[in-house]
């Protein structure tokens, strides 16, 4: 049976010195989810290949600034999660809730930013029925936004749990699993941003 590392403890190192953060099930889910998105990326590129003029004209209707700022928001949020996990690993659990709260704030900022972007599109009369590009845009960013909402719930739970953790207690695996999910959300946006906003 696999022993779970605890907060502030020296992490158990297998014989080969390699260790997977969190639980394997979360990683299996992460790679399965990323594969679903990869299939959508391929589908988007195939349809783009068939009608490049339409996709390019539609792409120019997107706000590059919104997309880039959203990328920076998620990267910053991921960095705060890394700092929170680092604080838990190195017996500074009092810092962890601060970093989780900052990560959660960034996550909420992403939702607000994305909502404003959607509202601007709807105000301009653009919806997922406008054309193929916007169908992909709304489906892929909408699915990603769903992941962000779930990620925010996870971050809120981790923030709440980390408030009561002591320097010598608590299951680190739970935090690492939540962090892995949140990093996947960041990673998917890093792929979506160039695909939708930058490919010319």
């Amino acid at each position, binding site marked *: 049976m696999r022993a779970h590392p605890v907060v502030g403890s020296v992490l158990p190192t297998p014989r080969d010195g390699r260790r997977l953060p969190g639980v394997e099930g979360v990683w299996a889910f992460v790679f399965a989810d990323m594969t679903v998105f*990869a299939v959508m990326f391929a589908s988007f590129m195939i349809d783009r290949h068939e009608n490049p003029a339409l996709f390019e004209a539609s792409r120019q209707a997107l706000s590059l600034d919104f997309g880039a700022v959203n990328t920076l928001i998620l990267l910053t949020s991921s960095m705060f999660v*890394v700092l929170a996990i680092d604080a838990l690993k190195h017996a500074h659990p009092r810092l962890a809730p601060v970093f989780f709260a900052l990560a959660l704030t960034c996550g909420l900022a992403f939702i607000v930013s994305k909502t404003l972007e959607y509202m601007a599109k709807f105000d301009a009369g653009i919806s997922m029925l406008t054309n193929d590009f916007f169908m992909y845009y709304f489906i892929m960013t909408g699915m990603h936004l769903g992941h962000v909402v779930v990620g925010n719930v996870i971050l809120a739970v981790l923030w709440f749990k980390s408030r009561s953790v002591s320097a010598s207690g608590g299951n680190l695996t739970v935090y690492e699993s939540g962090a892995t999910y949140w990093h996947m959300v960041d990673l998917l946006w890093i792929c979506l941003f160039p695909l939708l906003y*930058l490919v010319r």
Partner: protein
Amino acid sequence: MLSTAASAWGFSLPVIAPVVSTIAVMVVSAIKVGLVMAFFMELRSAPLAWQLTGTLWVAVAASMVVTIYLY
């Protein structure tokens, strides 16, 4: 963060040819994804099988997008 700024506002300048810009953007994105996996997700110290899975995903996703774009 710098690569995001470069990708968003630098490579999108009209003076850069679309093919060059797109390939550059995809390469930068693949590197960023690799870095997130290695350092944020800590795959660099994970068992080899998981590390290879991560590397494979980045390689397949990036090459697939670039190949379809260039085809």
